Structure formats: structure tokens, C-alpha cells
């Protein structure tokens, strides 16, 4: 009998890509795609779409009756505005997870649970270690998305204790970018000038959207591996570098004004306070465990992933322009030098 997989958040971009990828796997017999919003395009034949909220009884019935052996939970949403306010976002993130896990607890055929979490659980602070491993003790982020993600992870861990027969895999993903990704961070880089915290240049890690799906797929249909894994592209990119690669200009804001600027940009970017801290102090996670235990290596480095995303941006400054200016400056320097040096004009070389 083939695998029967339930995917939550299936109408969101990552969920949609994952459902399509799962449907192409020969060993997957059926996918139950759950989301409370309608998908923008129809799912393939193997997929049954269930248009319900995670908190509805219909989900409990679906999880328990359909012989579901794997549950993929796409975890906490990060955008308070899109969710309809911070309170609603928290409700959906945390209570939705509780309900899902309650349903999963009684699912008799369940053997595997995959949670998409985030490296935001590590927070962002100046006193953090440079590179986070999964086992390092970390402060609990006090705000928004990071806090929700921690609580979601906590509920999943407690589920893990109560259902030892279920392999629980938690993937902590770095910030996702790519040609079709739309999240607060990609919207930030779409701004004509990118506000930064004056005097700070954080280290960032990116994960390409294709690698997101590859990692989720590996955890879902690959060999079952129990544990928590950081998933990110290799290497780091500084915020200043990212802004240059995006062809934008930085706009440094003194620290005391940062809160008000973030408030101004809330409409367009939908930043939460801990994402502002992320753009001040940055965050880097170690991906060795994912490589060695889960057997997942990203195809795109942080830089390549960001460059691939940046191709869709409208650039203020392009590489050609800078190179041309450089060459012109050099050429005029040489002309000037020749005039001063009193050497014959171009072609004086014998």
C-alpha cells in the first residue's frame, strides 16, 4: 500500500510546491491537502483538497479515517497582517497546531510527523554564538513569529514523547528566497531603498525555494530520521552585500528611530519586531547535522539563492553600470597621468 500523506498549509506557496512534488513520488498513494484558503491552481489527481481550518472537526475525521501515515505540518505563519492581526496569527499558529496534534495523537496509522519550523526560534541578539547548532540552549524570542514557532515546536516535542512509534522530524528553515517566494523579507528587498539599522551589518543565511521543497520531501519520503535539523544554504551573506546584489541602496536609520520606520513600513513589508532585530543582529545556523544525519545538502548556497531571487528585482544600480564607470575612471586616470608624465599619447608603445 502506498503512502498517504496529510499536508497542512497546502495552499501557501511552499505547501503547494510540496504537494505537487509529493504527488509525483511513485510511492505516494494519496495526499490530503489542508488549508482554509482556496488554492490558486488545481492540485494533481492524487491530491484531495480539504478546505477547512486546522481547528475544525473535519480535519480530525480526515486525519483519523483516511489511513494517514504521515503528517506534514507547515507550521507557524509569519505575517500578522495577512493573518488578520497578531492575535489571529497566534491563534492560528498555536491553537491550530494543538488541534492538529490532538487529531494526530489518535490517528492509528500515523508513523511520521514532519514539522516545518524556522531558525527564528534562535532569536537574534548581539550576545548570541556566531553559529547555532540544534542543541544549543537559546533564549525564547519574546515576540511574534519566533515565539509562535517555539511554542509549536514545544507541542510537537510533547507529541513526540507521547507517541514514540511516530518518527518526528523538525526542520528549522532559514529565510526563504527564490523567484516566486513572497514573504516579508523578499518584500523588504523589493523596496526602492532598503532601510537598515545604522552601524550594523548582520550575517544572513538564505534557503532557495527549491531546496525548501527538497528538504521537506527528503524528510517526508526519505528514510525516516528522528530529530531537529537546521536547513540553510551554505555560507553567509551580509545584509550590505545582499542589498548590493539586489541592486538597491541602503538607508541607514539610527537605532532609536528604527521602531517608527518599521511601523511606517508595516503596510507594505509586514515586518514583526523580531524580524527588525534579525536585520540588526542577524543569525546563522549550522547545517552539519542535516547533511550528516538527514542526508540533505542544499543545491543553492545562500548567495546563489539570493542571486536567483534578485534577478526578478528592479535594480537601481546594475553591474554593467558600475563596471563601465570603473573603466571610464581608469581610462581618464591614465589619460591624465600620461599628460602629467609628459609621455606620448595612446599608441606610444613601440
Amino acid at each position, binding site marked *: 500500500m502506498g503512502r498517504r500523506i496529510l499536508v497542512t498549509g497546502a495552499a501557501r506557496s511552499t505547501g503547494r510546491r510540496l504537494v505537487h512534488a509529493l504527488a509525483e513520488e511513485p510511492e505516494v498513494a494519496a495526499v490530503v491537502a489542508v488549508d482554509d484558503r482556496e488554492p490558486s491552481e488545481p492540485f494533481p489527481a492524487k491530491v484531495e483538497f480539504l478546505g477547512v481550518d486546522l481547528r475544525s472537526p473535519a480535519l480530525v475525521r480526515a486525519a483519523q479515517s483516511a489511513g494517514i501515515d504521515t503528517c506534514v505540518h507547515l507550521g507557524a505563519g509569519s505575517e500578522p497582517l495577512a493573518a488578520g492581526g497578531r492575535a489571529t496569527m497566534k491563534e492560528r499558529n498555536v491553537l491550530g497546531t494543538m488541534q492538529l496534534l490532538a487529531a494526530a495523537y489518535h490517528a492509528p496509522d500515523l508513523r511520521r510527523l514532519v514539522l516545518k519550523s524556522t531558525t527564528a526560534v534562535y532569536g537574534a541578539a*548581539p*550576545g*548570541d*554564538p*556566531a*553559529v547555532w*547548532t540544534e542543541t*544549543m540552549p537559546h533564549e525564547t524570542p519574546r515576540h511574534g513569529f519566533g515565539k509562535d514557532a517555539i511554542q509549536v515546536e514545544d507541542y510537537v516535542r510533547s507529541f513526540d514523547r507521547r507517541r514514540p512509534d511516530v518518527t518526528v522530524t523538525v526542520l528549522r528553515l532559514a529565510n526563504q528566497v527564490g523567484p516566486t517566494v513572497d514573504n516579508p523579507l523578499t518584500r523588504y528587498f523589493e523596496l526602492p531603498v532598503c532601510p537598515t*539599522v*545604522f*552601524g*550594523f*551589518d548582520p*550575517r544572513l543565511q538564505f534557503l532557495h525555494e527549491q531546496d525548501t521543497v527538497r528538504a521537506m520531501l527528503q524528510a517526508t519520503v526519505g528514510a525516516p530520521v528522528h530529530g531537529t535539523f537546521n536547513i540553510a544554504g551554505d*555560507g*553567509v*551573506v*551580509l545584509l*550590505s*552585500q*545582499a*542589498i*548590493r*546584489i539586489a541592486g538597491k541602496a541602503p538607508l541607514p536609520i539610527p*537605532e532609536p528611530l528604527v521602531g517608527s520606520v518599521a511601523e511606517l513600513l508595516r503596510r507594505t513589508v509586514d515586518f514583526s519586531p523580531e524580524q527588525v532585530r534579525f536585520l540588526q*543582529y542577524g543569525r*546563522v545556523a549550522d547545517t552539519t547535522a542535516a547533511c550528516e544525519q538527514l542526508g540533505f545538502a542544499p543545491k543553492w548556497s545562500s*548567495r546563489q539563492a539570493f542571486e536567483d531571487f534578485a534577478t526578478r528585482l528592479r535594480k537601481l*544600480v546594475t*553591474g554593467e553600470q*558600475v*563596471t*563601465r564607470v*570603473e*573603466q*571610464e*575612471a*581608469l*581610462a581618464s*586616470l*591614465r*589619460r591624465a*597621468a*600620461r599628460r*602629467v*608624465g609628459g*609621455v*606620448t599619447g*595612446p*599608441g*606610444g*608603445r613601440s
Partner: protein
Amino acid sequence: MTAAERPRCKALTARGERCRNPAGPGGLCAVHRRRLEAAAGDAPRPSPDGGGRDAGAAADLGRLAPFLGWAEEALEFLRRRLLGEYAVDEFGHDPDLVEHVLAPLLRPLYQRWWRVEVRGLENVPDEGPALVVANHAGTLPFDAMMVTLALLDEHPAHRSLRILAADLAFTLPVVAPLARKSGNTLACAEDAKRLLEAGELVGVFPEGYKGLGKPFRERYRLQRFGRGGFVEVALRTGAPIVPVAVVGSEEIYPMVANLRRVARLLGLPYFPVTPTFPLLGPLGAIPLPSKWVIEFCPPIPTAQYGGEAVLDPMVVFDLTDQVRDTIQQAVHRNLLTRPGVFA
């Protein structure tokens, strides 16, 4: 990618030193590649106004050629920075910035102002991990910068010292990114272990603020060496400890008083009063031109103890004392042989 494994340009600079630019295709940096192509007589790059021909003529510029070479390098650097075409490692170390901006800014201080004399460089391994432990003094951490520059410029392997810095360095605007870009990271066991396991040369100043902000009358008297955290990291990774004695840093800002209230108000560990600061305002911030001697002492191996020794406080205390005594003795020795404070 660490600085050590990054390929360097094969060419020699005008001063006959090894070029330290990152190598591109053909094992040469962009500057030297273009020079080579110019010397070979073919147009290096298509450019709208015959820039290729100009480059070929560069050899005829006589006295101005070095300046042009410098300008070429500077423009190349600016373009890289404007396009983000440089790499930093996971700790944020930016060798491109160090080589083209930070080190050139510090070199006049090193060579002319403090006339730094370096001894015992052979005690620092050419490759692999080592923990460089030095005394700390001088109000501002210029000693850390000078030890870093000594290893970068004068060590045969041009090693980058990765200093474990106080958390204050990572909370201050402007300072925070410079601290990371110049190769430092936060002083915590996790970062130290990670750097040593990656085969890097790690620098620690166990006296911390107690050494940096001590009054002038206590000069060259080493303070307590923390709780020996650096020894534990060395034991865990089996990295040798290289004690370093810095002489000269104590006199750059002779601290006669410490305004504790002002310091507390500004959130700083101390607020120094020197004969010239804050009396002369910004002018008072110019350090005095003392004569410096930096001595790298023979390495103290730690591998023979095994990682388990971390649990034995006696081993940790003994090693801590051994390192501290080695440095204190070298400091006294070099003070006696130094021709004069400002000689």
C-alpha cells in the same frame, strides 16, 4: 570559506612582496591578470573608448606607474564592494576589507607610530589551530589590532588572528560590524571551539576589561586571567596555547583616573582620564608614540591531557597560571631590554 584556504594571487607586488589579492582564473588577481595581458600586448577588456590600448601603454608611464597600479586596485576594490562581490565566512570575517582598508589604516600606526618589534614568530604554527593568549592594556584594544597585524604581515603564513572579543563590541553601532569583518567573534566557548576545530588561529585576552581599563600605576602587572575558560577550550580541542607578551601598549593612554559615574551613565566598563583626555578633547585621543615589543613565546601543548582534563579544575588552574607566568616574565624581560619608553 576561511581565508587560509582561499587561493592567493601568484604575482609579486611592486615592493617585491607576495600579492595578497584573491586569485581568479589562472591563479592571478584581477590587477595582475590585466597587467600580464597588457604586457603580452593584447587588449585586455573591450571598453568603449579604447581603454585596452591605454592599459597597454601603462608600462610607459614611468614614475606614475605605481600610482596608476594603486588606483587600478582601488577602483577594482570599490567595484567589488558596490556589487557585493566578496565573500565573508560564517563568522563574518571579510579578508577583502581587511587587506584593502583596515590593515592599510593600521600599518602606519604599527610601523611608524609604535615601531612594533616582533619576536618569536616561529612559535606560531603555519597551519592548524592554536590559541594565542596575550596580556591586555591601553584603554582601547589597540594591542589586539597590533598582534593581529603582526601575524598578518610578518608571519610567513600571513595568518589571520580570530580574536574572541567582549560582548560590548557587538552591541555598539559601527564597531559591531567592524569587529566581525576584521575576524573577531564573541568570546564564548561555542565560537572558540568552532574556530579551533576549523583550524583557525584564535586570540584571547583573558584579562578583559580588568587589564584594558587598569590605572597607569599598575602598568605591566597582569590581572587575574578570568576563570580559565580559554584553557578549557584549548583542552577540549587539543590546540596548543601560544602565550604572547605585549610591551608598549600600557603607555599609549596612561590612565590616571577612572570616572566611574560617567562610565555607568554611558554604559561603558570604564571612562578613562589621561593627561590629555578629556582635557584636549579629540586631540587627547591621539595615543602616545611608545615603543612596542610583541613576543610570541614557545607554545604550551595541551593535547597530552586529553579532553577529559577539562573536568579537572587543578589541570585548568595550573595551565592558566603557567600561561600567565610565562607572559608576565616575558613582559618583564622585554621591559628591561626595551631601549626606552618612547625610544
